[in-house]
């Protein structure tokens, strides 16, 4: 038998193990390879030691397993020599292991649900997010029941119907009634889930706009590896962009010939008034990114060459969420969820949900994208440069001309 030879011929066995370890390219194999080809410059002493240590541990484990294998073999051979039935009833061993696996596994699942399940995102902070959470919970309940029952059956049958020479299996090729039942029941359950999912999906992406509560437009542009946020300014409309206008000063390629663009404001963070619908206009400059706001259950890819739109209503302010989660440092954020290059793992911006009043004070402080350089570039009247001594009156004149320019 292979195991006996494995023991008796130690050198070949050790070689074989080494070769398989190398072939496996597991950590330890890399250790070994690294050790073999080590560059002399760096002090690799410690590394060698740990590499050799791990290899020895692994070899010891292999040897241990081989010894056990050999012991089992000896036991079985001696039983055979005595004319007794074969030593270990492996069918019984596996059947018991499956039963054990079922029990421990179910406990493990319970542990995961309670321990890791408690570390998840807090309840949705948006209107549609609540519906998603409800659907999630329903799906979770259904699937957990199916998961537990089918696994009890799978491992339970494995345990009960283990091989016995005395028994013959029950010849039972089919039963159309049962098969129909277990086709139709899953179909019905899935129909319910599909219908709910479909209606939720429609309610998220096909919203009817309420003329009295127009959504706040915010444009988000992604690029490697940052986000730019554009607020619409007083007119409430985010103006046009044209990627061909992109320059070092106009990094988003905003078209300031479009009157709606001129009052557009930039922001370092996304601040949202609570309870007011927000219409996100998502665009990308270079590659595909994904705008992902896990707390609000919002995700949509940003795609170069097209605008994608997601509308949602935040329902909890940051302060409320800090209380709810018992975490004074809690922050909403959005991040990138679509592979986009080396910096993919760190593309984030903070989102603050605040009261309407706070929002108004904040938005008033934000600067417009349009500045003097860009005015020149777009042949727009530039605010005359006044000396500091000039009176406020002059300033207001400048503002007026500016506004006239805007109103053209």
């Amino acid at each position, binding site marked *: 038998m292979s195991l006996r030879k494995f023991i008796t011929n130690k050198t070949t066995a050790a070689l074989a193990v080494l070769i398989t370890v190398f*072939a496996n390219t597991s950590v330890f194999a890399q250790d070994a390879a690294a050790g073999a080809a080590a560059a002399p410059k760096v002090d690799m002493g410690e590394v060698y030691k740990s590499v050799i240590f791990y290899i020895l541990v692994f070899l010891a484990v292999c040897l241990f397993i081989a010894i056990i294998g050999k012991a089992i073999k000896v036991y079985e051979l001696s039983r055979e020599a005595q004319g007794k039935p074969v030593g270990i009833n492996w069918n019984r061993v596996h059947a018991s292991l499956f039963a054990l696996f079922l029990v421990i596994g179910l406990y493990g699942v319970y542990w995961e649900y309670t321990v890791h399940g408690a570390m998840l995102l807090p309840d949705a902070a948006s209107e549609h997010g609540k519906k998603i959470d409800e659907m999630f919970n329903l799906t979770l309940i259904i699937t957990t029941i199916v998961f537990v029952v089918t696994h009890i059956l*799978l491992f339970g049958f494995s345990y009960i119907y283990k091989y016995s020479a005395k028994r*013959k299996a029950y010849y039972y*090729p089919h039963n159309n009634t049962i098969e129909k039942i277990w086709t139709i029941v899953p179909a019905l359950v899935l129909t319910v889930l599909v219908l709910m999912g479909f209606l939720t999906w429609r309610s998220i992406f096909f919203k009817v706009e309420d003329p009295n509560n127009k959504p706040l437009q915010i444009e988000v542009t992604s690029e490697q590896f940052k986000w730019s946020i554009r607020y619409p300014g007083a007119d409430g409309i985010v103006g046009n962009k044209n990627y061909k206008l992109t320059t070092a000063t106009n990094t988003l390629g905003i078209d300031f010939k479009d009157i709606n663009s001129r009052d557009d404001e930039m922001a370092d963070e996304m601040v949202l008034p609570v309870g007011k619908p927000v219409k996100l206009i998502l665009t990308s400059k270079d590659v595909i990114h994904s705008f992902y706001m896990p707390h609000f259950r919002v995700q949509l890819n940003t795609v170069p060459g097209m605008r994608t739109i997601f509308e949602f209503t935040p329902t909890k302010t940051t302060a409320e969420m800090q209380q709810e989660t018992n975490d004074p440092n809690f922050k909403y954020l959005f991040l990138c969820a679509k592979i986009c290059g080396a910096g993919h793992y760190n593309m984030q911006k903070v989102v603050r949900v605040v009261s309407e009043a706070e929002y108004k004070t904040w938005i008033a402080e934000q600067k417009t994208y349009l500045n003097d350089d860009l005015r020149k570039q777009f042949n727009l009247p530039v605010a005359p440069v006044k000396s500091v001594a000039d009176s406020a009156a002059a300033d207001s004149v400048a503002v007026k001309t500016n506004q006239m320019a805007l109103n053209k």
Partner: protein
Amino acid sequence: MSTIALHDEHNHDHADHGHHKETLISKYIFSMDHKMIAKQFLITGIIMAVIAMGLSILFRIQLAWPDQNFPFLETFLGKWAEGGRIKPDFYLALVTIHGTIMVFFVLTAGLSGTFSNLLIPLQIGARDMASPFLNMLSYWFFFMACVIMMSSFFIQTGPASGGWTVYPPLSVVAKAMPGSGLGMTLWLVSMVLFVASSLMGGINYVSTILNMRTKGMDLWKMPLTIWAFFLTAILGILSFPVLVAGVVLMVFDRSFGTSFYLSDIVLGTDILPNEGGSPILWQHLFWFLGHPEVYIVIMPALGISSEVISVNSRKPIFGYHAMVYSLIGITVLSFIVWGHHMFVTGMNPLLGGVFMITTLIIAVPSAVKTFNYLATLWRGNIRFTPAMLFAIGLVSFFISGGLTGIFLGNASLDINLHDTYFVVAHFHLVMGSAAIFGMLAGVYHWFPKMFGRMMNAKLGYLHFWLTFIAAYLVFFPLHFLGLDGVPRRYYAFTEFEFMKKWLTVNVFVTWAAIMAALAQVAFLFNFFYSIFKGKVSPQNPWESNTLEWTAPVEHLHGNWPGEIPTVYRWPYDYSKPGHDVDFIPQTVPFSQTMSSNLPHDFEGNAEAEKIQQDWELANPVAENKG
């Protein structure tokens, strides 16, 4: 067929027919024998699997200890791990190539290629594939694809690193990341060769199954393995060309300045001239293959497990027809569900609703298959061979991974789960674990057929339990990361406050992954050792009904020395009441099993039923069946 048979007999007697003399090269390298090609596919597949597993251990180390240096990584990987830390670009290359190798080279070529080649001729009773030459080409194209894919590790800019789905513009614009340079070109070349390989294979499988079945082997007497390979091949033939179309357009975009996938792109302030294309187009083309692809991966595994479970439960597979119809259902539906990968990628939301409906419908045939497996085990007489253990493991993973699919198939839930670790956990259970377990079940079960020797069962047990437990330990906790909104393909979890609590879980998962990887040493040792030193296999080691076990253990061209056996019955007559042993091979005619025949065996053949009735009247004792 008869000409082949003649050649074989001569060959076997070492007759010196000059043109047919076997040399080392014609026997082991450019072999046209389906059994040798199957072994070539399998061993190449295993080597690729080991490489891809090694890559996964590398990035698991990075995820578990993002702030530690591993000097050995630098000596091993050079500038890609300066200071003993994997660089972000190389991390992405690792996940990309891990995914590509596992999905295409291991689970498509390694699984379908191995077992379709081995089992189709042997189980339907054919001397070889319909076109052995095409079959040989299929392997060598696959081999070249593997070599080219691996060669991308030895170029300055590194391998493709835009994820295995290589979404443009990231993968098209060379300046977007280093991997999108030459590495991506190699990826595309490799993929075209791979698709060519799998088409040659697929056409061969379909034509062999349709045209070369032995006498009596009608479609409804084929084992479920053959049904699965047949439908898999059809899926591949219809969907892989679409990927080539997509790849060709991508080559044009990359090298010839077209704009199929590109429009409105600015890198920093560098405005690209491309206009009018759409990156979404690639996603449609890719997933039109990509979704059938996951069924290309799982269906052969399901076929293998159907066979293994039935043989080792000593029971007919429950609901043979339902199993076939659910495979057909999966095949058809898998063509119209690709959009569920694109719910939030900017596809029109209207389509999202439609794809959600089709996606959740496909869960029905999958559920039927699961229940039928359970019903097959019920009141069986289960022998826990290593193959059977892996088949049971497959059912468990298929349930777990399938159920999480119900979350992801629901467009509304997918909004928050898309591209998170939940997805990673889901497809690693259903593909990475279930399909791999199907493959391993197949290897343990048909190893005697391939090499004429048995694998060591006890090492097989050890391999199974370690892998089974480790796989759950790796993938189960990952669901929770996803539910917490942790996106996949993140180089490190250190930049986000809310992800830091998962760092300990990452360490745990990495250790579990290392345990799973080391467990494979038991398999690799067992596999290669048993090829040369394993116990010589008996003719029919598992007491199985299917045709391959009637062929002699010694391999010969043409499989059967004399005439190809005739088939009289379906392959699942296990433990049939009234018969003295608990299996009746397909080659045993009903006239030899009068004591166990059932009315429905005769499929309405009045004459046969009459003979049976007469016999039963003449032998009243035999009436007492069971």
